[in-house]
Structures are given as C-alpha cells and as structure tokens.
C-alpha cells in the first residue's frame, strides 16, 4: 500500500505544529504578564488598562480566536503524539536510567493537562464569571486574599514555568532552528522567559497575601 502524506501527517510535522502553536501561546502569556504588572500601579491603572483593551473588540476577539486555534492545534497534536509515544515502547523496561533528560521534559505530559485545568479555572474566575464585572483590580485582590486560591495559582504557575521551559527550548529543535553558535542561547532564552514569567506571576498572589497589594 502506498499513501500520500502531508507534513501534518508525519510525527515531525506534528512537532512543528506543537512548536508554532506553543510559540503563539507563549507570546500571549508574555503579553498577559506585562499587562498584569499594572496591578502594582493601583486600581486605576489596571482597570483603565482593561477598559482600554476592551474598547478594541477587534484586538480582543482576534486574539481570542487565534488562541483558540493555537490551543486546539497544540492539544490535538499533543494527544496524537502522546498516543503514539505510549504505544511505541511495546514492553516496559524493568530498569531504566535517565542520562540526559530533565524534570521539566519528563513532566510535560503532566504539566500540560494541569495547565488546561488551571486555564479553565482562571477563565471562569476572572473572564467568564467575575465577582465584580469591570473591576478587575477588586476581582484579583479579593481572589488572592483567599490562601487556597493563591496556592492554586502558585501551583499553576510553577507548572507553567516547567512547561514553557522545556517547550521553548524544544520548539527551536522541532522547527529545525539549530546552529552551534546559537544553541546555548536557546536554553538561555528558555530559562529567562520561564523564570521571568513564573516569578512575575507568582509575585501577584504573594503580594496580595503579604498585604503589599490591598483593596
């Protein structure tokens, strides 16, 4: 039997899709984080920023549709690759010793679904069912004053940091961006972005719990 293949039908093509869609999502995560920094400038700054964004429906809905496609492609490809990779081993090793991989890479299949749950909760809490529509600052501070919710955000952002650390490094490899002169920068960039995003995002609930950011 012979068959014609498209790029997406190959495992390599699916990884390219994972890399590109992941890149879109990381781009949004960075932008989202920078916007959130308005929390430290007070209620007027954060609420004003939110109002300004929502006065541009083309931007808001364009971003949402793009993200929906990116998440669909990312999760769909991940599921198909996961199914293949699980069955590719055949029988299990009694002894297996890792030589090169790291914690972030090994836990991608865990941090991925954790992030999906985190995302659903996050959207429900602040976008779909906010306690005080229009008052982003109050929503955020009231939510983070609850230590359980803050703990959940801490855990979610640790998962995010691990996931995008391996993701960013791995994406360059998947799209074939590999050059001896720049290879060390791929890891440096992955460390820098994931560290800034994780530390920055966990600073919000910690600042609220510590009483630095108050109503």
């Amino acid at each position, binding site marked *: 039997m012979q068959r014609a293949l498209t790029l997406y039908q190959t495992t*390599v093509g699916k990884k*390219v899709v994972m890399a590109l869609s992941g890149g879109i999502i990381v781009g949004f995560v960075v932008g989202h984080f920078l916007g959130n920094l308005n929390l430290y400038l007070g209620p007027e700054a954060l609420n004003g920023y939110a109002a300004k964004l929502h006065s541009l429906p083309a931007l808001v809905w364009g971003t949402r549709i793009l993200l929906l496609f990116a998440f669909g492609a990312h999760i769909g490809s991940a599921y198909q*690759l996961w199914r*293949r*990779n699980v069955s590719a081993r055949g029988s299990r090793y009694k*002894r297996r010793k890792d030589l090169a991989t790291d914690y972030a890479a090994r836990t991608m299949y865990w941090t991925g679904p954790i992030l999906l749950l985190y995302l659903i909760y996050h959207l429900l809490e602040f976008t779909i069912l906010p306690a005080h529509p229009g008052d982003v600052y109050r929503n955020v501070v009231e939510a983070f004053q609850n230590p359980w919710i803050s703990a959940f955000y801490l855990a979610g952002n640790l998962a995010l940091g691990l996931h995008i650390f391996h993701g960013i490094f791995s994406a360059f*490899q998947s799209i074939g961006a590999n050059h001896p002169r720049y290879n060390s920068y791929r890891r440096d960039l992955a460390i820098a972005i994931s560290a800034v995003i994780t530390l920055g995002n966990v600073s919000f609930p910690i600042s609220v719990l510590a009483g630095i950011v108050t109503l």
Partner: protein
Amino acid sequence: MADELINVTLHVWRQRGPNRPGGFETYHAKDITTHMSFLEMLDVVNEDLIEKGTEPIAFDYDCREGICGTCGIVVNGVAHGPQKLTTVCQLHMRQFEDGQEIWLEPWRAQGFPIVKDLIVDRSGFDRIIQAGGYISIRTGSASEANEMPIAKEVADRAMDAAACIGCGACVAACPNASASLFTAAKISHLSLMPQGQAERADRARRMVAQMDAEGFGACTNHGECEAACPKGVSLEWIARMNRELVRAMVKSETPARTRNR
C-alpha cells in the same frame, strides 16, 4: 595491572521467541577477570549453561570491535551499559564491581520486536534506509578521487552524521522509543554531500514516512538518544532532519510513499 577476579549476579531477560512471554532469570558469573569484555563474560556464562544442558542466553554480536552496530543490550537501564561512547562489546568488566547485580534487557520498542532473549529484529532500520538512504551515481569504472570537490568542513560534518552504526541504542534509550536520531543521521549525512542532492527532498519525506510507519515514537527532545549513542551522534541532526522535511514538503510536488512493514 594485576588480574582481578570478580563475581557478578546477572538478571537476564529470557524469552523463547517472538510474542512469547518473557521473564528474568538469575545467573551467577564466577571468577570473571576484569579484562574480559562484557560479551566474553556472557560467553563464559553460556559455556556453563551449555555444559549443564540449559539453553544459552541469546545475544547479538558480530565484529566485537565496536564498529558494526550488531550488538546491543540494555545494561542496568542504560543502552550499551555504563561507559559513555562505548558499544556493549567494547564494555569491559572493569566497569563493574565485585558482587554487583546486573540487569540485562533487550532493546524494547514496538519497532524492534524481540526475536529471542536479548536479540531484537532491527529490520525496521533497513526499511528506513531502503526508503531513501541511497544516492544515484554512475557506476562502472572508478572515478577520479577528487573529481567532485567537497569542502573539508562539509565532508567532516557529513562524516560526523555518518558515524551512526545503526545499532538502535537511540531507540532503546528514548522515552518514546523514537528512531529520530538514526533517521536524522542518515538523512543529514546524505543531504550534506553533493552526491545526495538528486534525491534530497524525496529522501527526507520517504525516510520520515517510513520511520513513522514502523511504529517508532516521536521526538520530544529529551536528549537520551545522544547520551546513549556509542558514536556520539548529535541531536543537531534531528533539527536538521526536521528542517529537511519542512523544506521538502514546501518544495516538492510528488507525494511521499511508504512501504508496508
């Protein structure tokens, strides 16, 4: 160095044939000199088993010089054992301690069905090569040695990729049993050379398609393959394979075809 004799305990995967149930059997290798290679130690154990009238442990080997790619055993969870850049035939017993327990398993992968004990069927690799690991050249009388100019750096890099001996340790070590490092090394080696340009696009598509058709997993960039590779074949070639495939898919109009397993 004075001769040192050690005793080791082996837990060996025994399986009478394909699709038969397998399990671990324990053997004691006594008075093994540390100058023995790992396979010579197994030869000693097997001689003992044959004398006792039991079935010897089946394992693959050919050159025993670390260059042919035939041998391969997962030793204590590491493909080809604890010494870096070394095939299991070139691994010596001085790497082990007296009284150590050693677990021996075959390469485990859907694409490498177990034939018997520690021997697996690696004809999947042959089919990947058949799919595109060749070049078209004029045969006949030998051509001038330097007829085709190739830059030194290009020849060196192609040689780095061509160092792959096709042993399958990359598949054995990969958490996804992916054959990416092998396939990438072969695609890269030929695509770098001027002789490999004629089939360049077709080669990438056909060899990747065959790699997938064999049931190997996908690359998730753990780097286990590179760490286990007895020839130090670099992950860099996987990136190059990905680049070659995207380039081929964008450029070429003829569809990729795969052979059935």
